[in-house]
């Protein structure tokens, strides 16, 4: 082969190779181009997705911001150093700071001392792994406004970990308005209780008749925290006979108190209407009359009243009563052999219209004791929820039947307080004790009176007065004179110290009457009315050296009664038997 031919073939081969390479290259470029196109398409999709997501996020953030800003509660976030990170509109409203003036400041600016100084420690302790006091729970705390005023607020704090940032979110609810409402509500309730209490004391509880012949009567009420519908009253018929009404309105509060007062008024009106001259109506007739007037109203009010209406006559020794669903009465004979609960069988007032009522009659003798009571007593509970019950009450009456009426109700009170372990009860306690004493009226032998001022230096004069008055009585002194002087001295000392609170120069009047078998002393004053239990009872084990006064009085006289006289003065009545039985 010639050289030329060789060269030509070589050139042709090379061209073919180049052409092949160019073809290849062209193919690769197209491939690349296609890939490029695909990549671009994918990027566009991604960009669209990111754009959409961003818009979504922006919307979400705006929504959260709107929620935060529109929230009624203040929402504050702080960082782990206690600096405020965000502060919503409600927080601005509550604390008085605009967000841009408080963000970045320490959160303790929003709290008074001692938290103001200690908040950094709280945070540090928590971050150190200490026990969280507030995180994850809510509590009532005090906030500090920009103007320096403090206010009650409810704070709940939660923790958010955000990447490597630790944030705390506090939600703050301003309690000032609620507190004001609560206070107003509590005041309103207190007012209602006071009104109820005043109604109860002034309208619902009548005074036991004093100085009945042969009848010793005493009443006890312990009003509960809320006003119950317990009531009682006495209608004196003559010196040896009185009517007694005791009752309980279903329900509590001012309404029950008013219904109780209304019921009492109905009884008094019916008694007056049906009395002709000195002739008393039958008890059942009085109750019939009250029921026909009252029952329709009670049915309308959807309530009812239990009552026990009794007539006690010392002249005949008879006790009659009509029991309308009440607790009956305890009759304890002087010997104690018999001590029973006697009940009638009538329905409470306010159940059935046109009902006619039955009266029960019992005979009593000198020395017998009667007790009328509300179910607040028998239903009182011990700390272990045991009921006091009728049997305990009967037993208490039997054990103390030889005491005077006042001492009996005092013993019942003491027993109940011991049983229930406190002086505050859920229900009103009401009871009335009636002691049948010798009925023979006594002729007064002499009377004298003395007015003193509330000065300790007057006590000598008081003792001389009592000593002289009793020694003039010509009744043999078997020690009763010293006992009476001691008792009167103690009562007058108590009047000076507790009724007048030691104020000098206030009047105290003493009246003393001598009868063949007893001395009666009345001590009247214008200070705070003393009640039997306003002075604590003493302990006689030598651990106290005061408080023996009332104990002495109890030991020295046979009867103590507290009452208001016609002039409205508070009086203490002491009766001392001067002859030994």
């Amino acid at each position, binding site marked *: 082969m010639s050289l030329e031919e060789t060269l030509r073939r070589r050139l042709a081969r090379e061209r073919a190779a180049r052409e092949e390479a160019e073809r290849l290259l062209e193919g690769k470029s197209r491939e690349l181009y296609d890939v490029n196109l695909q990549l671009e398409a994918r990027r566009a999709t991604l960009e669209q997705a990111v754009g959409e997501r961003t818009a979504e996020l922006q919307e979400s953030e705006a929504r959260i911001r709107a929620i935060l800003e529109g929230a009624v509660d203040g929402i504050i976030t702080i960082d782990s150093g206690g600096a405020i990170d965000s502060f919503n509109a409600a927080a601005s409203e509550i604390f008085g700071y605009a967000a841009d003036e408080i963000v970045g400041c320490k959160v303790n600016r929003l709290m008074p001392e001692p938290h103001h100084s200690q908040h950094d420690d709280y945070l540090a302790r928590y971050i150190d792994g200490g026990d969280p006091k507030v995180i994850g729970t809510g509590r009532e705390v005090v906030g500090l406004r920009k103007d320096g005023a403090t206010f009650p607020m409810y704070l709940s704090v939660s923790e958010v970990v955000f990447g490597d940032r630790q944030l705390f979110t506090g939600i703050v609810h301003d309690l000032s308005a609620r507190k004001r409402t609560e206070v107003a509500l509590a005041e309103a309730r207190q007012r209602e209780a006071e009104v109820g209490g005043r109604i109860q004391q002034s309208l619902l509880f009548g005074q036991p008749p004093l100085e009945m012949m042969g009848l010793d009567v005493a009443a006890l009420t312990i009003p509960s925290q809320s006003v119950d519908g317990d009531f009682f009253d006495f209608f004196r018929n003559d010196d040896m006979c009185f009517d007694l009404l005791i009752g309980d309105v279903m329900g509590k509060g001012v309404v029950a108190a008013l219904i109780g007062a209304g019921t009492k008024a109905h009884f008094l009106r019916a008694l007056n209407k049906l009395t002709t001259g000195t002739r008393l109506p039958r008890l059942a007739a009085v109750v019939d009359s009250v029921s026909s007037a009252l029952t329709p109203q009670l049915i309308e009010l959807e309530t009812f009243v239990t009552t026990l209406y009794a007539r006690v006559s010392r002249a005949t020794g008879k006790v009659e009563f009509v029991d309308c669903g009440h607790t009956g009465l305890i009759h304890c004979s002087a010997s104690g052999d018999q001590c029973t609960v006697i009940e009638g069988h009538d329905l409470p007032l306010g159940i059935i219209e046109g009902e006619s009522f039955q009266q029960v009659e019992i005979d009593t003798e000198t020395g017998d004791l009667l007790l009328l009571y509300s179910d607040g007593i028998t239903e009182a509970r011990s700390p272990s929820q045991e009921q006091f019950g009728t049997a305990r009450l009967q037993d208490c009456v039997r054990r103390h039947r030889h005491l005077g009426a006042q001492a009996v109700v005092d013993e019942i009170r003491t027993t109940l307080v011991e049983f229930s372990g406190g002086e505050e009860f859920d229900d009103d306690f009401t009871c009335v004790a009636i002691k049948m004493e010798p009925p023979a009226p006594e002729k007064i032998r002499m009377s004298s009176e003395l007015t003193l001022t509330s000065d*300790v*230096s007057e*006590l*000598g004069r008081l*003792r001389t007065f009592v000593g002289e008055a009793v020694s003039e009585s010509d009744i043999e002194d078997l*020690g009763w004179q*010293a*006992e009476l*002087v*001691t008792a009167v*001295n*103690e009562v007058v*000392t108590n009047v000076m*110290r507790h009724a007048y609170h030691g104020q000098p120069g206030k009047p105290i009047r003493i009246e003393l009457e001598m009868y063949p078998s007893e001395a009666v002393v009345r001590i009247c004053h214008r200070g705070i009315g003393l009640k039997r239990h306003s002075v604590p009872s003493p302990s*006689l084990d*030598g*651990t*106290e*050296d*005061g*408080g*023996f*006064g009332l*104990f*002495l009085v109890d*030991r*020295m006289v046979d009867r103590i009664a507290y009452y208001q006289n016609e002039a409205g003065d508070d009086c203490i009545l002491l009766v001392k038997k001067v002859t030994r039985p």
Partner: protein
Amino acid sequence: MKKVTHTNDGTNTIIELRVRDLDVGAVAEIKTELESAIGKAPRLILDLEEVEFMDSSGAGLLVWLWRRLRASESELVICGLSQQVRVVLDSLNFSRLFTIVEDCEQGAGTDPIEGGRDSR
């Protein structure tokens, strides 16, 4: 004038209360005067010969005195009781707290406890 006079023979402190009425008006002053006289002998004889009347604060004073003496393991003997004082102390059962003797001369004797305790 002092309301309390006292003598001391090493065994007995004899205190006389020089008041007619041991009542609420007298007790505070007497208590102050008694402070300086107690705890100086193993037995304290309180002579109430001049006291005609005692009220509950007077009774309280005796309990206070008894408690102070008990703390120093001294004995309290009370003598010279008027009828009224006797009535008050009896009704409070105070003969369980301290020895009561009728006659103050007897109080300083060798064995006042057996002879004197509630000699009513």
